[in-house]
């Protein structure tokens, strides 16, 4: 925004001198084959200086807007007796359509109008002083802006004295605007100004000014003046060429010739000839800086680089090292070769190009004369870009293989599973489509974080990621930001299924390097250990995700209750610790300070279940099942108020039995009606065990500590706890 090419103001003289004919005729009625013989062609017309200048100006603008769609802004002032702006610094008014439309409102200069361009010049300086939206943005972000600009003045001068008056006028205007900048908002002091004055004259005119390249003005060193003298020869193309040279220098553009483009002949469709197309583009980084020859020259642009047409067969799935990419603009946009090339590219083709040296010593840029792709031209989003490809050695040529470094000897990486993460985190240009407040990039990183919270790198470090069919619904759901009730249900179902697996004694996938856990133990206990680490791993996974939402927490709680660990303490401080734990390997025992005490105690307590399956380490299937049922039941069941009211766990039944037998009989009857079926049975069970006592007393205690305190439960040896 501080570059001198950020703002360019064109001042076009609309005085009578510009209305003069360029004295060069344009043939517009050219002979064609279809025209019968003997028809006299119509007299050619002459372009005025004004027309030649405007045509040339439009070409200048076309190129700038093609190559710099943003931040290179152009403005136009038409000056006669007054000054008229044709557009503003607004982006919407920076295009050729807008310019042409406003120009048509101006029309050709009037023959008799009087005045000079001084008024226009002062306005042009004023336009440079105005801040653009990009500068405003920069200023508001606290950066300093050096306000530089350029004025290109197309006019006809009388002599060098006239030139000096114009320069002096510009110097004064710059000073004036610098003074007023402090008081006016939106006006910036001008730090430097390039004033390019182009003196245009018709063919045969002898008026001349002294041309000179950029030199500081004597009156104000901030103003650099350049004077150019151009005669509108050859249908005014001299002016156009002069402006092409100027645009090349003003915006540091390169001229590249794409050579040898095979193209079908217009007349003979089955033969093809090779054509060249001249393109302008920003200088590609990585190419040598060449001193551009001076641009006071009315000839055609000549190319500084020749690129030979290669093949349009480019593999889009290969990533080329590209040192620079620049938008292009054809020098002659409507010529047949240009149109053929641009249409070919706009249809989505890419073409490889080869740097071609015309020097006698060497053919191609690559060594050894072998064909080397050095550039590529392709269209991306309706803009055509010229890419410079890296042709030099990479600085890390011939590196050691990645598998020679740390982690390289590991064989069972979850590469295809990581592919799933990649697919889920495929980025799209969401610009503006996401609800405000969230930047898509942050959403993307948050999603990636959720997907990787618990993610063992190798198969052998994980059991649950090897239990694809059983655990997948949970793994898929848990990484979501928001869980639907369905998701929660899915997850719970997975947990129950796992319990089912354990109950059935199904073998878990063998985890080979799961540490020393399974070594030297018989098969049964090995399986037991596996389930133990599976549950531990599942807990780690759920705990890692528990901080996402309360529903995630619910799933963790569900799982913890199922394996008899009680509710988690709803803190997430352990998550971080967990993460590091995951990295170092999932087979370590994880105990956060917040987690409930391990299950060893319950093992000793739970003698009856130990009797059923003496090898079991933690819990019997029965106790797990009862817990589960009890868990569901407890949600439906209304606690017997007698127990709530009593000291400890035991409700004294019929406390008033002796005093008032009638009253006492009513209470359980009422309770019965309110309690759902299971609750009722359970209550009965309790009743029975409470009164019957005996052998079943111990079995009724599952060893699980609920927050309400342990409740006596019905004990069953069978797996169906309730009477049918």
């Amino acid at each position, binding site marked *: 925004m501080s570059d001198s090419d950020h703002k360019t103001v064109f001042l076009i003289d609309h005085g009578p001198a510009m209305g003069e004919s360029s004295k060069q005729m344009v*043939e517009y009625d050219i002979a*064609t084959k279809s025209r019968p013989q003997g028809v006299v062609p*119509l*007299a050619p017309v002459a*372009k005025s200086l004004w027309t030649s200048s*405007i045509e040339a100006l439009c*070409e200048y603008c*076309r190129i700038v807007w093609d190559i710099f*769609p943003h931040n290179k802004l152009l403005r136009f002032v038409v000056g006669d007796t007054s000054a008229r702006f044709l557009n503003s610094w607004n982006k919407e008014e920076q295009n050729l359509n807008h310019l*042409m*439309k406003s*120009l*048509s*409102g101006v029309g050709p200069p009037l023959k008799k109008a009087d005045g000079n361009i001084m008024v226009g010049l002062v306005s042009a300086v004023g336009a440079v002083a105005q801040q653009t939206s990009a500068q405003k943005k920069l200023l508001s972000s606290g950066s300093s802006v050096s306000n530089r600009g350029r004025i290109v003045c197309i006019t006809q001068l009388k002599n060098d004295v006239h030139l000096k008056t114009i320069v002096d006028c510009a110097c004064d205007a710059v000073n004036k605007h610098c003074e007023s900048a402090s008081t006016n908002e939106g006006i910036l002091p001008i730090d430097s100004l390039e004033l390019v004055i182009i003196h245009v004259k018709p063919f045969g005119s002898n008026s001349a000014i002294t041309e000179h390249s950029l030199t500081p003005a004597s009156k104000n060193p901030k103003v650099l003046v350049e004077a150019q003298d151009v005669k509108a020869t050859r249908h005014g193309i001299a002016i156009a060429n002069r402006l092409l040279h100027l645009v090349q220098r003003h915006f540091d553009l390169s001229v590249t010739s794409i050579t040898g483009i095979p193209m079908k002949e217009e007349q003979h469709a089955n033969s093809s000839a090779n054509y060249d197309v001249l393109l302008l583009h920003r200088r590609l*980084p990585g190419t*040598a800086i060449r001193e551009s020859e001076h641009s006071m020259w009315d000839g055609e642009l000549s190319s500084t680089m020749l690129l030979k047409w290669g093949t349009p067969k480019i593999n889009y799935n290969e990533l080329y090292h*590209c040192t*620079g990419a620049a938008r292009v603009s054809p020098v002659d*946009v*409507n010529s047949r070769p*240009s149109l053929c090339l*641009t249409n070919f590219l706009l249809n989505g083709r890419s073409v490889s190009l080869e740097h071609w040296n015309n020097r006698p010593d060497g053919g191609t840029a690559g060594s050894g004369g072998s064909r080397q792709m050095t550039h*590529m031209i*392709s269209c991306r989003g*309706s*803009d*055509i870009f010229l*890419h410079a490809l*890296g042709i030099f050695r990479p*600085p*890390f*040529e011939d590196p050691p293989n990645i598998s020679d*470094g*740390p*982690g*390289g000897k590991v064989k069972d*990486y979850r*590469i*295809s599973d990581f*592919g799933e993460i*990649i697919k889920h*985190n*495929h*980025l*799209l*240009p*969401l*610009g503006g489509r*996401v609800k405000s407040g969230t*930047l898509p*990039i942050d*959403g*993307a*990183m948050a*999603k990636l974080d959720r*997907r*990787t919270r618990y993610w063992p*790198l190798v198969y052998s*470090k994980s059991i649950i990621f090897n239990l694809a069919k059983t655990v997948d619904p949970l793994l898929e759901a848990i990484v979501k930001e928001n869980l639907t009730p369905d998701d929660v249900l899915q997850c719970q179902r997975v947990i129950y299924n796992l319990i089912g697996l354990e109950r059935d004694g199904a073998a878990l996938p063998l985890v080979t390097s799961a540490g020393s856990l399974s070594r030297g133990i018989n098969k049964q206990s090995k399986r037991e250990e596996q389930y133990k680490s599976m549950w531990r791993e599942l807990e780690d996974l759920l705990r*890692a995700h528990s901080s996402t939402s309360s529903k995630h927490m619910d799933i963790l709680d569900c799982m913890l209750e199922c394996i008899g660990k009680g509710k988690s303490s709803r803190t997430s401080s352990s998550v971080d610790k967990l993460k590091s734990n995951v990295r170092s390997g999932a087979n370590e025992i994880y105990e956060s300070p917040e987690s409930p005490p391990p299950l060893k105690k319950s093992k000793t307590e739970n003698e009856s279940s130990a009797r059923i399956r003496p090898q079991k380490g933690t819990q019997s299937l029965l106790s797990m099942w009862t817990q589960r049922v009890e868990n569901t039941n407890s949600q439906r069941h209304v606690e017997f108020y007698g127990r709530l009211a009593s000291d400890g766990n035991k409700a004294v039944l019929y406390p008033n039995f002796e005093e008032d037998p009638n009253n006492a009989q009513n209470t359980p009857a009422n309770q019965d009606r309110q309690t759902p079926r299971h609750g009722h049975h359970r209550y009965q069970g309790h009743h029975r065990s409470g009164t019957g006592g005996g052998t079943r007393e111990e079995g009724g205690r599952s060893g699980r500590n609920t927050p309400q305190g342990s409740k006596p439960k019905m004990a069953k040896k069978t797996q169906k706890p309730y009477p049918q």
Partner: protein
Amino acid sequence: MPTVIAMDCSASMHSWYAPNKEGKVLSKLKLASECGIQILEFFAEKMKLEHLAVLSFSSDVEKLSDFSRDYAHLKLSIAKMKVRDKSLFSQLVSYLNQFVVETWGYMEPCHVIIITDGRLSWPEEIMVAPSRTLFEFPGNLHILCLESTSSLTSSGCMKSLKNILEQNSGKGSITSLLKSRLNEHEVISTMKNELEKFLNDRFKIFEINLKCGSLSSQVALYPAPVADKTGEEFDDSFQIIGFLDVADVGNPPVLSRHLLSPVADKETSQNPDETEDLAVSPAMAIVLHGSLRIENKVALVKVSPNNYGVIYSWPCSKTKSNLVLSLLPPGAESVPWLGNIRQLGPSSLLPSTGKKIEIPTFPVQPRKGSKRSYAQPTVAWTRPTGLQTDIQKILRSAKKLPEKSQVFYKDLNRLRRAALAFGFHELLEGISSLLERECTLLPGTAQPEAMLQLSHAARELKASIGAGYEHNLEPLKTDFKFNR
């Protein structure tokens, strides 16, 4: 990054540093070659992947060894150094500009270490232009002087060395390897210490934590990345944002590329016994590499608040491939077809409104109404052929009237608007007469409507010169059927 060691072998380097009592030759040249060997040993030990070259310079430059990683060969090449005439620094600079660029191009940063006694002649007349820098490649110039700081200052050498450094935009350093009044035993040890300090200071392996969500991996970057022009520092960790198809990312312009190789985490590497286990402890970078290669994707990574890069699997041979990071030019909008990088996100972020939403795709299209000149009909009449082509087109459809009247009027209106914009009213009158003449040239077989349309257009074209830009010439209504 590649490093060139350039040894000054001018006659002044032949001077004996210390009085020689025991027949030992201790010339500065000998010291310089000691330095060179020490530098090579440092690289061989710590930065095995770097390429080095050895040059000697006087009034001419001699290449002792081309860029290589064969440190033994490089060491041998130092021995080939011979004393020559006077040193001409400008000669070295122009040689380097050719030598380095030939191998690495104009984009690759390169270190140039010069070992000298400080007497580098730098004729005033070949000062580089203010807009240019000393080197045509991004070069860091490190001048190691076999002289004490005080003697450098008193002889005026320091001033000219500083001047040289300034010419390189200040990128580099001047280090004095010796101290004044050293006896011969101290000379070598002092020099070695100073050099060691310099090397440790300037040549470090760039290590960073590469993060992919909650997973992370410690990686080393070869060559070390250079902070962008705005001087924005790199983040403490490089964080992956998401993934893109290779076809979508489409050969973006790249500032520099770097090999990513997993290294041991600092915490775990402290114990030397564990190095054995490193090869078998899994590294995220390897999973990432494998998956990127199989899925043919690149990972977009944030390296600093305003700088991004892409990580991909780079095949270095048919069987080998590696993880490589390419740094994109600064800013979130450095790749036009990706749009603003901050606006990239997974499709799950799109609001689910129930109705089917259009999934945005790459490449990002430029904003509406800003089509390039080659992608839309554009008028360019600076060359006579431009105008003639447009007129020929109109005449062609004029001959096929009334069938082609749509095209005819469309092209005619376009020409009319352009002529108005260019203030080329004479042309409109000319075209009007042209159409009138075409009228008279119509063959007898032509439909009568063709004549009607042509004369209508000719008349209207002339009459509407003052009617404004938006005015449209409409075909003459010749179908009166609906009036019946």
